[in-house]
């Protein structure tokens, strides 16, 4: 029996409805439990001494004064931890040529970025640990720092890792068709430079970990704010020489992740190593400066790009040369080549064109390592693509919506393979654009823009179509050798009271995973969502899985949950059939009652069935299976990724005297396949949009030429706050994936993918009458005034 998704009045129709999140109430009552809320007996705290230099040889460490601080128990150097913890090298086989040196939990001999942990101080209180850390005297011999991306491969730039030969970590060139010939014969060729700033995630809960090593049990337990508990289990086991089965990672409430908490951080591994040495619980909570200097950064790209179009606006070719500086190490185990690789994979994504060339060059720098952050590579690729398309439209005098309509893959063209060799199962660019036009009333907005201009106001409309990579298969990491699961599992069981417990390998970071699972399981079994308790984030308890990344929770974890729930329903009905002397296929479960499918007549509540199975099993036939617990796993097989699509629009006003941009409104229509919980999807989109708006207007990590990070506080690194953000209109088109019964694709990154490009295009639409154009994010007042020629020094 398959679920009739088209019938909203079907029994147990929870998939597709807004149901409350089961874990929201505790959070509004302050009863969540984040890692820093946990206190264990004999717990100690660790604070880190970090390198103040971007590149320096460590010539001596004097910790005598620190040892004298009351409460300080132990002090560890890189050499100390290297004895118990093996280094890691973040390369993957499918990223051909990627290189990176071995990285230790604490710097050994050499520090390579400002903020790299050098010495660990352990004390009975955090205050004492910090006081001790301040008294550790490290002698450094400063070395030249590599800080500029574009000159990093020049002959006179020092090579950071002599063993690796040069500063090039990874390079990939993709060519399809003949770009040179297409450019040569084109009606118009438009060239532009783009720049996206170095960002970081600024999770409100800093990175947090509490690790205990129970020598008596031979077991390590880590309470960890992470997106990928099973991946971390493997990492701790491998590098601390513990059997994988003796490492338990527990991920309770997490205060925001966005990709920041899916990586291996040296200070967190150091915390685990110290716990193993000391045999007691060790807690590390990053402070805000540590967050800015050691949470992964992202999006630091410089791009030269060109687009060729014919007289009718058809795209003939796109050419992209992308450069990014990743810091001194590729980040373990996902690597820091993925973002550049994604730019190559995603540029030109919505469009049907023939000639495509893209190269990414990933270079080492003495700055904080960069790695995957929400919408990895998408905001860059969408800014390049949509920026070029708008410039081409302006060059030939065509409306930006019209040029997109002329180039987007037709909605009935699928399956297709893009010029970047990405396989699209089914997208809806045209239907999404139609819906956007309707939601924003495009023509009326153009009229408002024209009317405002008469009053001397410069308003702009920006459109950005995009694709989003979701539901990754092992093609993302597994084929390269990483022990990162693309498969996910769910165990669903019925307890004696008729309630249902679902244990899932995907994790909750606040996006609503547990609500999504509760409604999928509720519908799959036939109970109310409130009867389903969801358990995630415990490697010793849940089925093995990948966790939260690449917008996979609903599409992968949701399908596993649905299949497990349907299997449990079958088991329940088999028992019910025996008890009721009925054919199980004539029975259904609705709202926790076994009923006759045809008449809906109630035959038995689940708690009665539970009572019999668990306490009076003697009354059932001896051969009757009574397994009221079922596990199913799901992995995508047909496509490497389930691509989604969407289109965003920004309406804004530029103050041409001050350069300040005021966001008036924002729209997003997206297609994530089956929408399981409309409210949660909309709020993912909204939150994602605002994260993208931050990148467009405010967020930029600044370094000086010596590699000193200049704005490591929330007073200096600007993030979007409520007063500056617009209201957002969200719409959907649903093109379910055929790879699963559920049909869900991911929705977590679409907002972030498209928002910066929409804002860029809107600003440039506003500035076009003044011949101003901006392509370097964030679009600060200064950059806008420079584009207008009002600042020239």
């Amino acid at each position, binding site marked *: 029996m398959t679920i009739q998704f088209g019938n909203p009045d079907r029994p147990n129709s929870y998939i597709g409805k807004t149901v409350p999140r089961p874990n929201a109430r505790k959070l509004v009552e*302050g009863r969540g439990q984040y890692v820093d809320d946990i206190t264990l007996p004999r717990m100690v705290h660790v604070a880190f001494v970090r390198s103040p230099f971007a590149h320096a040889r460590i010539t001596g460490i004097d910790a005598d004064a620190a040892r004298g601080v009351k409460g300080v128990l132990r002090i560890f150097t890189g050499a100390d931890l290297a004895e118990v913890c093996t280094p890691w090298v973040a390369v993957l086989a499918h990223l051909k040529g990627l290189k990176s040196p071995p990285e230790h939990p604490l710097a050994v001999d050499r520090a390579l970025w400002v903020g790299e942990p050098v010495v660990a101080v352990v004390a009975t209180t955090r205050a004492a640990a910090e006081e001790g850390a301040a008294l550790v005297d490290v002698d450094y011999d400063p070395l030249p720092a590599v800080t500029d991306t574009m000159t990093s491969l020049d002959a006179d730039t020092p090579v950071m890792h002599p063993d690796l030969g040069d500063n090039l970590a990874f390079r990939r060139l993709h060519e399809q068709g003949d770009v040179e010939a297409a450019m040569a014969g084109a009606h118009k060729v438009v060239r532009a430079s783009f720049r996206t700033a170095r960002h970081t995630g600024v999770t409100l809960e800093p990175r947090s970990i509490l690790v205990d090593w129970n020598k008596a049990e031979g077991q390590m337990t880590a309470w960890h704010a992470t997106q990928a508990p099973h991946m971390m289990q493997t990492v701790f086991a491998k590098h601390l020489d513990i059997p994988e089965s003796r490492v338990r990672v527990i991920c309770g409430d997490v205060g925001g992740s966005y990709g920041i908490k899916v990586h291996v951080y040296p200070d967190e591994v150091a915390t685990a190593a110290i716990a193993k040495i000391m045999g007691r619980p060790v807690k590390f909570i990053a402070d805000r400066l540590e967050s800015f200097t050691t949470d992964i950064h992202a999006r630091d790209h410089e791009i030269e790009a060109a687009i060729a179009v014919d007289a009718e606006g058809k795209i003939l070719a796109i050419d992209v040369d992308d450069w990014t500086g990743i810091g001194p190490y590729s980040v373990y185990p996902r690597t820091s080549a993925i973002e550049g690789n994604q730019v190559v994979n995603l540029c030109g994504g919505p469009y049907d064109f023939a000639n495509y060339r893209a190269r990414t060059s990933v270079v080492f720098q003495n700055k904080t390592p960069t790695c995957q952050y929400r919408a990895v590579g998408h905001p860059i690729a969408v800014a390049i693509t949509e920026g070029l398309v708008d410039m081409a439209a302006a060059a030939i005098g065509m409306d930006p919506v019209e040029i997109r309509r002329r180039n987007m893959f037709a909605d009935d063209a699928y399956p297709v393979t893009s010029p970047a060799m990405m396989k699209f199962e089914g997208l809806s660019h045209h239907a999404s654009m139609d819906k956007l036009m309707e939601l924003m009333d495009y023509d009326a907005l153009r009229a408002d823009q024209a009317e405002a201009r008469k009053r001397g106001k410069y308003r702009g409309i920006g459109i950005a179509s995009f694709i989003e990579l979701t539901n990754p298969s092992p093609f993302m990491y597994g084929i390269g050798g990483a022990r990162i699961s693309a498969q996910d599992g769910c165990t669903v069981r019925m307890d004696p009271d008729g309630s249902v417990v679902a244990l899932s390998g995907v994790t909750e970071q606040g996006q609503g995973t547990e609500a999504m699972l509760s409604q999928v399981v509720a519908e799959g079994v036939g109970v109310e969502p409130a009867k389903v308790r969801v358990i995630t984030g415990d490697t010793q308890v849940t089925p093995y899985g990948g966790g939260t990344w690449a917008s996979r929770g609903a599409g992968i974890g949701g399908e596993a949950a649905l299949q497990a729930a349907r299997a449990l329903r079958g088991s329940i009905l088999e028992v019910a059939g025996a008890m009721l002397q009925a054919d199980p296929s004539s029975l259904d479960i609705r709202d926790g009652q076994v009923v006759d499918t045809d008449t809906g007549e109630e035959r038995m509540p689940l708690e009665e069935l539970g009572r019999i199975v668990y306490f009076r099993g003697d009354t059932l036939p001896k051969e009757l299976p009574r397994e009221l617990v079922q596990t199913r796993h799901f992995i995508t097989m047909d496509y490497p990724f389930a691509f989604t699509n969407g289109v965003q629009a920004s309406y804004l006003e530029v103050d041409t005297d001050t350069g300040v941009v005021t966001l008036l409104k924002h729209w997003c229509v997206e297609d994530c396949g089956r929408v399981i919980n409309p409210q949660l999807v909309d709020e993912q989109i909204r939150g994602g949009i605002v994260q993208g708006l931050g990148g467009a207007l405010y967020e930029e990590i600044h370094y000086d030429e010596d590699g000193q990070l200049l704005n490591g506080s929330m007073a200096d690194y600007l993030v979007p706050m409520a007063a500056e953000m617009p209201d957002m209109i969200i719409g959907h088109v649903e093109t379910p994936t055929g790879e699963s019964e559920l049909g869900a694709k991911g929705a977590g990154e679409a907002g972030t993918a498209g928002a910066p490009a929409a804002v860029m295009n809107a600003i440039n639409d506003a500035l076009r009458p003044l011949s101003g154009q901006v392509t370097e994010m964030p679009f600060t007042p200064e950059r806008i005034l420079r584009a207008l020629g009002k600042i020239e020094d």
Partner: protein
Amino acid sequence: MTDMFRDKVDIELTVNGEPVEARVPAGQHLVDFLRAELGLTGAHASCEHGVCGACTIRVDGAAVRGCLMLAAQADGAEVWTLEGLSDSAAIADLQDAFVARNALQCGFCTPGMLVAAEELLSGGSVPSRAEIREHMSGNYCRCTGYEAIVDAVEEVAQARAGKGAA
């Protein structure tokens, strides 16, 4: 650090309506005292310099930053954290609205958001959306994009005004 920060100060205050006596390090922040000494982990430490609002609590009727106030300064004060405001049901309508509107995702900002919102609404007037955004702009949320929070606060403001008029 100097010896001054190891000096201890005796304080008496009420927290969530209950009397508390403690001897605290002179340099201990109020949010750390509440979290570590009293086990009130609802208020969260995040930026630890007064910008993000995650540690917002109510002290003598005002929404204050728990990371910018020392525990020693709370001597004689009346302190309410989200745990107490929940037990007393003082902000039950706001909490209900936050859940119904999904005005929280990871929940880390939520305790501070609720205290800040209650401060705004306790004035009794019905603020505009722009006024709500302005008042809440000292509280950082990375998850929601703020619109759901503004919706929830606006809804409660209107509901309370309606009740007052009835």
